[in-house]
């Protein structure tokens, strides 16, 4: 497996780990699930450090490799960026529309999922990680196809 493909896998897994950890930390878990929250958080942190270890290991052991990245990798990265950019734009547009609707119908007719700046901040962070997941998934798809 080429270095860039391994890096795509590690980036995908670490993004997923961070996203899950972030969602776990912002959610209010009911008291009986507090133990599960701690265990899940610890597992996600272990996965994150494992991917970090693999990336550092790759840098050390595969440095003498002849070519790290070539024109095919650039093409695949471009496709990944394109999809991530489209996803990010669509998500931000959706959030803005939701905010506008919420303001328009603030009388309570429509109850949106956005409440205040904190929620907006959480939504943007989640969208950022999801965009990275979209990018890495697209790249992995094209690594299999091309």
């Amino acid at each position, binding site marked *: 497996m*080429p270095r860039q*493909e391994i890096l795509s896998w590690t980036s995908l897994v670490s993004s997923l780990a961070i996203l899950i950890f972030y969602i776990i930390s912002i959610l209010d878990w009911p008291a009986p699930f507090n133990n599960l929250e701690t265990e899940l958080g610890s597992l996600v942190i272990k996965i994150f450090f494992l991917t970090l270890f693999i990336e550092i290991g790759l840098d050390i052991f595969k440095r003498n490799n*002849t*070519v790290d990245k*070539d*024109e*095919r*990798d650039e*093409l695949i990265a471009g496709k990944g960026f394109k999809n991530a950019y489209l996803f990010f734009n669509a998500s931000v547009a959706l959030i803005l529309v939701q905010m506008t609707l919420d303001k328009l119908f603030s009388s309570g007719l429509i109850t949106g999922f956005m409440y205040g700046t904190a929620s907006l901040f959480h939504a943007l962070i989640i969208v950022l990680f999801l965009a990275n997941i979209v990018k890495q998934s697209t790249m992995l798809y*094209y690594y299999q*196809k*091309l």
Partner: protein
Amino acid sequence: MEETRIENTIRKLRFLNGEMTQAQLAEKVGVTRQTINAIEAAKYSPSLELAFKIADTFDKPLEVVFQYKK
């Protein structure tokens, strides 16, 4: 992505050049082995620069290595 209509004789030329491996060719032209594999399988069309480099490695004109099928 559609499969390209650019065919090539890289596999044949590698064997005619002392059974050169994909990795050896990749090293000579400065790409990864996976890229040579994708070009050979006609899954990926190389840039003009890379195509010339590959043809140059085999000391053949470009049209001998790559053919466009109508």
